[in-house]
């Protein structure tokens, strides 16, 4: 029996059902995926879309995947026309120039039919460990996309609910871990079918007419909330720029330039002036660039409201073709997310003068990845690969200090690897792990601290590093100061020292020490206005050194670490003049 009401109650129930349908799809995907990067790193995303490819419900996965699944479906609709779809079809694609991101990210989607009627799509995205690049995983020094693995436009992998064995065989033969690749593919397909089944039961219960009416109302509410929020931002042009240290291959900085125009309810983000496509793998397809802009938007505007087809009603994103943000064949895209972390920070920086209470100083910037690879003598020389992103400091904001040691903005649920787990699994000892004092940007509220982590190799190993943002460390806002950037120090077994940030396959001997330092977050407001008592507590806590307190905050502490009020007042007066 179909209910036909389209009142606020039905709308609210349908809205919750859309969200729960997406949650069920996500649960299916996570539960049945084969590789930890999906079921533990949550490097995945799912969405339930309507017949036009607009989002009805999306589950939280990797933040950076926000709202780019619909792009893939819309592209397919455009390319094939709606009449090309049949019940039981499932499509796979991974072309970065279409979907954004990199070849490792698999987009799998399926049309949903109710009877003969096409009523929507279910879509999923997940990171596949290996898609046949020149090196395992994602190479750090690729210069063409062809070195990064196989590339597919939208391709049917299922027809009439039957797997196309020949096509799947082709996928399987082209990755290093074909077995788990197909396992992960099946997990995504199951998630699509879960979405289909649940969406059909929603249609059975309410009928399409009611669902369409509810959808329009839900989109209207989201759009209204967003329009009101954008209209509240003063009209104007807001700009910011910064650079990556390099593209991983050459030495030159890679520029990111942002212009945000706000006019009434309209917001345009224009990335003109950003660097031309880079030779190294820091290029990004336009679809993913749009997603990153939406992440920045969502950080500032109605962050708690789930995303649907009504969200971002007045946001336009422009990026010139052939730039790093609108990559064209054959630009390599393996580390596409590195410029996006900076882009998100810069959009916030540009808009900060308009929305100072919602903004925050920049964060430490990138995933800061270290791999150590070699053979483990404790396990009969079995190969090991210890891979970690590293948390760092986040920016301070008007009402609070930035967070110390937090994972970067394009990641989400990632956790650091416990020392006890790391040492048990790999022939490497972690000697120290903690906050890097004075790394947070000084301010009335303090930028968060970066971290240090010291590794001692118990056997020979190769070092790979992808550390970024030394040329544009996290900046402060409203008079807050910049944070310290990242650094990695290698002390070889012969006692010689070397500092570096990016390196591919550097051989190290047993006994070598590697110490990573991540950057801090930017400060907020004038550091000379920070309450001396809070500075003293930062010193006790180890976020700021006694010298740093005096140098950066003008707060003088005696040997017992009590505030010397007179000396502090004097020092602050001197500083101000």
């Amino acid at each position, binding site marked *: 029996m179909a209910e036909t009401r389209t009142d*606020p109650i039905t709308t609210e129930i349908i809205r919750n059902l859309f969200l729960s349908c997406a949650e069920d799809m996500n649960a299916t995907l996570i539960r049945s995926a084969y590789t930890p990067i999906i079921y533990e790193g949550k490097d995945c995303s799912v969405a339930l879309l309507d017949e036009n490819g607009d989002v009805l419900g999306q589950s939280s996965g990797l933040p950076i995947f926000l709202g780019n699944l619909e792009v893939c479906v819309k592209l397919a609709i455009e390319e094939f026309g709606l009449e090309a779809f049949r019940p039981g079809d499932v499509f796979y694609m991974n072309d970065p120039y279409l979907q954004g991101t990199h070849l490792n990210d698999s987009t799998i989607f399926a049309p949903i039919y109710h009877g003969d009627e096409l009523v929507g799509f279910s879509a999923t995205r997940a990171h596949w460990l290996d898609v046949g690049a020149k090196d395992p995983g994602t190479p750090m020094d690729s210069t063409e996309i062809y070195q990064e693995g196989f590339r597919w436009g939208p391709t049917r992998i299922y027809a009439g609910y039957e797997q196309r064995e020949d096509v799947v065989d082709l996928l399987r033969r082209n990755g290093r871990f074909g077995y788990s690749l197909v396992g992960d593919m099946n997990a995504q397909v199951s998630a699509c079918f879960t979405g289909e089944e649940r969406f059909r039961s929603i249609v059975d219960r309410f009928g399409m007419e009611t669902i369409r009416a509810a959808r329009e109302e839900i989109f209207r*509410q989201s759009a209204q909330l967003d329009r009101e929020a954008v209209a509240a931002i003063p009209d104007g042009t807001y700009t910011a720029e910064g650079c990556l240290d390099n593209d991983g291959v050459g030495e030159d900085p890679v520029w990111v330039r942002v212009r945000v125009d706000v006019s009434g309810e309209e917001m345009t983000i224009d990335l003109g002036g950003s660097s031309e496509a880079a030779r190294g793998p820091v290029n990004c397809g336009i679809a993913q660039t749009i997603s990153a802009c939406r992440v920045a938007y969502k950080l500032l505007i109605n962050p708690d409201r789930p995303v649907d087809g009504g969200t971002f009603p007045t946001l336009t994103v422009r990026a010139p073709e052939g730039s790093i943000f609108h990559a064209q064949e054959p630009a390599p895209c393996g580390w596409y997310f590195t410029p996006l972390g900076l882009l998100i920070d810069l959009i916030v920086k540009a808009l900060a003068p308009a929305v100072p209470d919602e903004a925050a100083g920049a964060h430490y910037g990138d995933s800061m990845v270290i791999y150590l690879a070699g053979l483990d003598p404790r396990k009969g020389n079995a190969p090991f690969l210890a891979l970690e992103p590293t948390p760092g400091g986040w920016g301070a904001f008007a009402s609070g200090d930035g967070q110390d040691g937090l994972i970067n903005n394009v990641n989400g649920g990632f956790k650091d690897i416990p020392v006890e787990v790391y040492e048990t699994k790999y022939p490497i000892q972690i000697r120290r792990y903690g906050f890097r004092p004075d790394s947070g940007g000084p301010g009335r509220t303090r930028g968060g601290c970066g971290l240090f982590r010291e590794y001692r190799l118990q056997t020979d190993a190769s070092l790979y590093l992808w550390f970024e943002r030394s040329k544009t460390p996290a900046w402060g806002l409203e008079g807050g100061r910049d944070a310290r950037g990242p650094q990695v120090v290698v002390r070889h077994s012969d006692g010689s020292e070397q500092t570096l940030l990016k390196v591919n396959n550097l051989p190290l001997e047993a006994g070598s020490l590697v110490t990573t330092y991540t950057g801090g977050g930017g400060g907020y407001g004038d550091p000379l206005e920070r309450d001396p008592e809070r500075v003293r507590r930062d010193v006790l806590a180890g976020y700021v050194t006694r010298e740093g307190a005096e140098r950066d905050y003008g707060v003088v502490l005696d040997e017992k670490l009590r505030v010397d009020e007179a000396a502090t007042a004097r020092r602050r007066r001197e500083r101000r003049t």
Partner: protein
Amino acid sequence: MADYRVSIDIGGTFTDFVVYDQGRERAFTGKVLSTPDDPARGVVSGLADLIADLEGISFLVHGTTVGLNAFLERRGTRVLLITTEGFRDVYTIARGDRKKLFALQYRKPRGLVPPEDIHTVRERMLYDGSVQEPLREEDFGPIIERIEREGIDSVAVCFLYSYLNPEHELRAREILRERVPGLSVTLSHEIASEWREYERSSSAVLNAYIAPTVERYLKSLDGQLKDRGVPARLHVMQSNGGVMTAAAARELPIQTLLSGPVGGTIGGQALSRTLNRPNLLCVDMGGTSFDASLIVNGRPSVSTETELEGLPVLMSLVDIHTIGAGGGSLAYLEAGALRVGPRSAGADPGPVCYGRGGTQPTVTDANLLLGRMNPDYFLGGAMALDRAAAEREIGRVARELNLGAEELAEGMLAIINAKMAEAMRTITVEQGVDPREYSLVAFGGAGPMHAVALAEELEIGEVIVPWAPGTFSAWGMLQTDIRHDVTRTFYRPMEASVAGDLESAYTELEEQAREILRDEEVPEGRMHLLRTADMRYVGQEYFVNVELPGGGFDAETLEEIADRFHAAYRTRYGHSTPGAPVEFVNLRVAALGELERRVIGFRPPAGGGHEEVRGVVFEGERVPAKIFRRDRLPTGSGVSGPAVVEEETSTTVIPPGWRARVDELGNMIITPEEE
């Protein structure tokens, strides 16, 4: 002489009692207001009101929220944390993850110890438990000075790899206690003997934080009970679903954290046995929260860790999923849309119909307006409900949406039911469990009112409303065993060569487990030890807990264990990879001490009949529904919907198309009416 077995469930608002009179084979219940300033007082006076002869109490168990409240309200004891040099910040870094994805101004969950209260000493163990650097005892000097100077009462110690070699942690306690007698010292390996230093520190700190509070409370309660001549040892309900003596609880206060809510799940387990229903979905709906839990194959589903307010806790606990939905959930408008919950009117001011100043309509008001509740029989008539006020305020919100008051009220129920159904989906569908294979057990004040609607949402074909659902959690506490869990990390591949080490590790764990049961005065014949292991495919992070067969280990049993692992993995994740290498992570032994426990039902009365007819709204129509008193419904009687069954602390709604039947134990079994 009388012989009473008594359970007490101390909640935020009410303290519930269930008393089983063994001689007369009769059970009765009681409910008094809680006394949060001194919870022991309410317990003792309530008990004295209920039982004349306190000397006749032979067994006493209670669930307490004293520890949980101290934590939630951040009223615990200041704790100093001592850890390995080089790793002072591990507790504060808290693994660096973000729990909210879109939050520029994110704040990590606030830890219980600020960084300036974390000290380090020189010492270092290696991944195999060997000592790299011995404990430098002189490093404790300045720490002890600070403890004395600042009057600190509680210390937690967490050293790297203490789960493999506890020597340094044990020595640390000796040093601290020598210098500061009476200091409460929590050692991480005694709370959780497993790897992951942040999670272990967090668990130890939480234990240290609530220990003095829980200890004071138990001492006071124990003393007052003794003063009144109660001879029974006091038992405390644990988060893991078992009970322990108050003496043991003082050593391990962390296990009292979820002491209250698990009673209902254990009650579900008892029902599962007596009704021969291996799979039950238990739901407890009260004023502010909705708890859902599972009984699978006759056992509660138990996990090995959880998060409280974002802080991880490694401990064995019954899986309970809680959301903010209850009788007090508020209805309000946002961007022209109707929302219901999670905001709640709480106990004060409470729903509009309580007449205590509430002006925003709640789920209880909606139930009242629709005729599902009886305004003259709330709490057995002890409190009159103001139906007119409920109608007025619901009508006010309804007009803003151009709806009728009753239409809005039904809508509020539809929305809150959809949310609760979602919570039930989370613990079933998302874990690979099909709710259609389960029966729904509903209790708590509001549970039976919504139960059939929830069953309909999830296509569940049977609803069970136990006798006295308002005090079901307390009843459950009388149905359990003593339970303690011991654990050891055992990171080894699953292959024939580990059989010997596996056996000796389990033998040691079991000896440890027996020791604890002996301390609890459990006779040898009533001890049951259950071996389980956390296992996973090599290279994975997460594990699956697998129950092991009894007896020694050889190639054949290892084979069987592998099969069990693959099967458990398939259930949980939807697929498995037989033949792929498997490894052990942690070994666990659950030590159960069987308690005197008899199935105690409530004896249904002999006579009955329905009392009156009231208009109740279903699907937009007010229809005449028969109203029954539960205590006048005899065994074997049937009630066809539309009907409402009322009792002092709860109301059961039977919609059209459903039929209830009373079984020999007084449970109502509600199923769809046969065509």
